[in-house]
């Protein structure tokens, strides 16, 4: 009997000791298959969360739809393994387990009418495989969308603690990438996948065209407007891909685009990093507009834009993809309007760092690990151009133009490891053109419109409309 007891105990112990899957509230940072070795450097890993209620969807596989009770209703949830008795509160962690195998349906849905504003906020959310969530997601903590899970619509990230958003659905693999343990899963999409045309000129942009292999609104983690309103000393690290059909709003706190991760916005108008807010890119990370906007400014920095940090410098290139600006020259009576002229659309710059803004590059090897600023490789949206250009002769002239970007960098600049490509003549406007000489490890890409002396202009000191258009949101 005794000889059987120990094995029996071990057999019984195995299920008891079987690991629970990692969740947003229990991320299992020690698991190297889930997290890279340097996760200890990440703010969210060091964050200590006070205890909170953890609510698990009671019936995985069973949907709750708009005509059902509100999802806050306790009967939908288990708490500590028992039926919940209290509704969801603003500080709880929600876990939506994966769709059970063998079910008749491929996924289950949790759908809530999106009319509520203020949107109910929660702390953590885990969306398992085979789960589709449709509500306005507002979180103060961590959000983890497992591969095969879907979260629609992201809306609001706030709170005073460091947190993460993680999307395990595959990121299109970029040419230089290899799968990294604990990093976002990579996938090579066949040409033409997801209804994207393989644009020939994308290959001439240094921005990986594969970033745009998704549809406009990433179904796995979709959104229209996403507001980042973390407390000033708090951060949200985006791991994987986050897309939005409209705009990201960087209002306060820090948004960290993790290694090989991406924020892709489809918005027409200017996106902006407000004063006091920070947008941080790390190795292999990308921030870009999906389209190629003809008007407004793609990104205006009144806060900080960091490529790498002192504690976490770049070890590989990161990318800022911006739109081609050329229409402005045809949208005023004077076809030769300068960047900082006063024509209706003269603020048609790609990227602006205002006098109160900061742009810094921190690289471990600035010769090889750089911030690359380039045309995002997207074609012009013809319909918009035709209607706004107006005159056929202007349209013909415009079509003769190569895709060129314009940068207005008149804030605090710390440059060591930078590539700028597709820059227009006079397309780099600086408060003092001589400061270019102080920049280190700068490469002027092969598609720039001329030699350096023709690319750089002195700022006339006048603020453009884009400087103070509200919050950099347009």
């Amino acid at each position, binding site marked *: 009997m005794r000889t059987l007891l120990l094995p029996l105990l071990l057999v019984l112990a195995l299920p008891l000791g079987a690991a629970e899957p990692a969740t947003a509230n229990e991320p299992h940072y020690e698991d190297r298959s889930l997290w890279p070795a340097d996760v200890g450097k990440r703010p969210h890993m060091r964050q200590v969360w006070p205890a909170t209620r953890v609510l698990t969807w009671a019936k995985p596989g069973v949907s709750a739809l708009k005509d059902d009770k509100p999802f806050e209703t306790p009967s939908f949830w288990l708490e500590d393994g028992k039926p919940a008795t209290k509704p969801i509160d603003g500080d709880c962690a929600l876990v939506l387990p994966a769709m059970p195998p063998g079910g008749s349906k491929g996924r289950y849905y949790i759908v809530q009418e999106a009319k509520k504003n203020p949107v109910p906020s929660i702390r953590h959310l885990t969306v398992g495989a085979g789960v589709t969530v*449709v509500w306005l997601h507002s979180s103060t903590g961590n959000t983890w969308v497992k591969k095969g899970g879907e979260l629609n619509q992201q809306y609001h990230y706030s709170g005073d603690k460091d947190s993460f958003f993680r999307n395990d659905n595959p990121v299109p693999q970029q040419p230089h990438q290899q799968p990294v343990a604990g990093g976002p899963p990579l996938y090579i999409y066949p*040409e033409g996948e997801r209804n994207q*045309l393989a644009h020939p000129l994308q290959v001439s942009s240094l921005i990986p065209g594969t970033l745009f292999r998704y549809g406009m609104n990433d179904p796995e983690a979709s959104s229209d407007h996403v507001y980042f309103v973390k407390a000033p000393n708090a951060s949200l690290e985006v791991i994987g891909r986050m897309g939005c059909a*409209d705009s990201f709003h960087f209002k306060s706190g820090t948004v960290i685009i993790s290694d090989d991760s991406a924020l892709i916005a489809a918005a*027409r108008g200017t996106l902006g990093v407000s004063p006091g807010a920070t947008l941080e890119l790390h190795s292999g990370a990308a921030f870009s507009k999906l389209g190629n906007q003809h008007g407004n400014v793609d990104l205006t920095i009144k806060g900080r834009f960091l490529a790498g940090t002192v504690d976490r410098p770049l070890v590989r290139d990161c990318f800022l993809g911006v739109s081609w600006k050329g229409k402005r020259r045809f949208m005023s009576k004077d076809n030769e309007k300068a960047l900082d002229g*006063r024509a209706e659309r003269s603020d048609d710059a790609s990227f602006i760092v205002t006098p109160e803004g900061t742009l810094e590059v921190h690289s471990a090897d600035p010769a090889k690990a750089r911030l690359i600023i380039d045309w995002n490789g997207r074609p012009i949206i013809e319909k918009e151009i035709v209607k706004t250009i107006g005159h056929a002769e202007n349209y013909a002239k415009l079509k003769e133009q190569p*895709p060129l970007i314009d940068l207005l960098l008149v804030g605090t600049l710390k440059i060591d490891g930078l590539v700028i490509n597709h820059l227009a003549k006079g397309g780099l406007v600086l408060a003092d053109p001589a400061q270019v000489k102080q920049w280190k490890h700068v490469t002027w890409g092969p598609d720039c419109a001329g030699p350096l002396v023709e690319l750089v202009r002195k700022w006339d000191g006048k603020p453009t*409309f884009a400087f103070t258009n509200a*919050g950099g*949101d347009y």
Partner: protein
Amino acid sequence: MRQVIPLLFVLLTTSAAPAQEVLFAPLLMQTVALVDPTLQPKDLYERHRVVLLLRVASVDKETHTAELAVEQVVKGDFVPRSVHLVLAGEQLERVFFMLMGQGKPMVALLGKSRRPNDLIFYLDGGDGGRWQAAEMDAANPARWTWSTDLERELFGVFNGSAARLGELMQERAIGRDWFPATPFIAFGADRLLGRLDGPARGVALRDLDGDGRLDAYACSEVGDRAWLQAADGTFAPAEERLGFAGCRSRSVAAADADADGRDDLLLDDALWLRGADGRYQRSAALPAAAPGSGRVICSCFIDANGDGWPDVAIARERGGVELWLNPGPGGGVFRDGSEAAGLRRPDASAGGSGWLACGDWDGDGRSDLYFSADGGRLLLNSATAGFSVLPLGYDFASPDGGPAGGAACFAPVWRADRQTLVITRDNALCVVSCEEGKAIDQSLYGNELQIAGDHQLPVVAADIDCDGTIDLYVGSRSGGANMPYMNRGYGSFMVSDRYTPGAFPGQAHRAGARGLAAGDVDGDGAPELLLGAPDGRVTLMPNASLTQRDPPENPSAQQSTLAGIRMLSVEVKGPRGVIGAVLSLRAEDGRLLGLQQIGSANASGCCGPDRVGFALREAGRQVLTVRWSDGVEARWPIKADAKNPIAIIATRPPAEPHQGP
């Protein structure tokens, strides 16, 4: 095959055209503009043979089908009274669950000239609405197959609620729709009135000296300022002359508190009466604050009991809302009515701190209060039981730990026939309408209402672009850019700066505002904006929107409509019942064309004039009704041939006043 077609297209375009030609990809139909002027609901209406308003009668979640009830055939012919909707494939399952719900309104447009069985439909979902494509069974028009989620292919056409789109289609059918796709606002160069020694707070545009011209007042904790407008339009400092030298305030409001025919001022919790000599003197009629009372955050005049005499509401730090009732015709001292009004109850946030605004939110004829403490409270004024509390549940805390937001105003911005509560949050704008007694936040359907500035605080409502809909102007308390939200109608707003950044040529628009007021200073019918900035500047932004209304040689429909608008200016006279007076403009057939209320459209702690403007977009006879706050009513017909601009001085009739609702 799916991959061959795009490849063929690429080959055809790249081989047949110069290299740069391929920059233009007509098939890249990702129209991402929030307002796409090239494709608007009216265009869809014209391009389709049939337009239907439907409602989802039932949803079968197992079979992924729905039954739709046809409520109205707006255009064309459609015989079936119900439609069976099925999915073309499981790939639409997600959007089916996202959008479908029993009772939801739907707008469908069927049949283009070459594709008679194609249709598109619109449903609420996500933040806003979503367009879908379907096919009608040629043999059975009552069976539709839902084929495509158009995602954002038609984004920028209409992003609001399906119910409002339905209204737009109904009005299109009778030629009454107005949904401008491009802004037409224009302001002139800034007029700097002066600079305070510290940050500005509440501001006012009022006739301070009774000469018929609007003057300006600006509050500051380091010293208020006042300016009188001369006949030539210039403004001169006048705080000494008026008696305000040395005043230090946060909030300003105006009303004829003692019904002597002269406007008086409420500066924080102090009542200043204007004498016959034109000077203001502090009155003891409003008792001084009790010892230990918190500082005033803001205050306003409100006719709380409907007797036509302006009462006073005060919000103090940690003091909740105080209500002081006007002594009325017998004179004397204002009486503390807070307890009786229910404002000392805990659920009325009796010990809270916050912003105040007043207006008749639920349309019952009594002025309600909004108080921003504890997530926002609507204090609804009842006939007999004081104020009841409707909590709103917002979070006004600033992410950076700075002063909380939550300032507000009341204005008919969601619908033209009733007031809406408009609240600013740090980085958001909330529009709360009364729907069958419930507070519904409609912001998600407000299109560019979702584009917010930084550290938003004061909000003022006025028809800034003079088109007949009430717009919003929001100030940034941190000195960032202010936000102009032009009301397109049907609940949709456009941030005009995105499309016409030159409309505000001066710097004041981009330097923030702690105080805002709107009023027609130069008498042309278009409201100017008075800004009190965080840096102390007090600036008047002249409104030039009406100067650009001459139509070009081949005007668009929008330009033609604008050219035909007549401006009506109404000055409401008392001496009683002006605060809270409601002005309504009706067409000859009784339709309500416009609604405004004196004293409600102001930014918290600020004050506008007792005169309002209406932009008359429709031709024909119209009737203006003024209902003073104590129930006295009078009407003025507006002739069809009345020449632009039209001015009415609404004098209160001498009849015995109704005792209030």
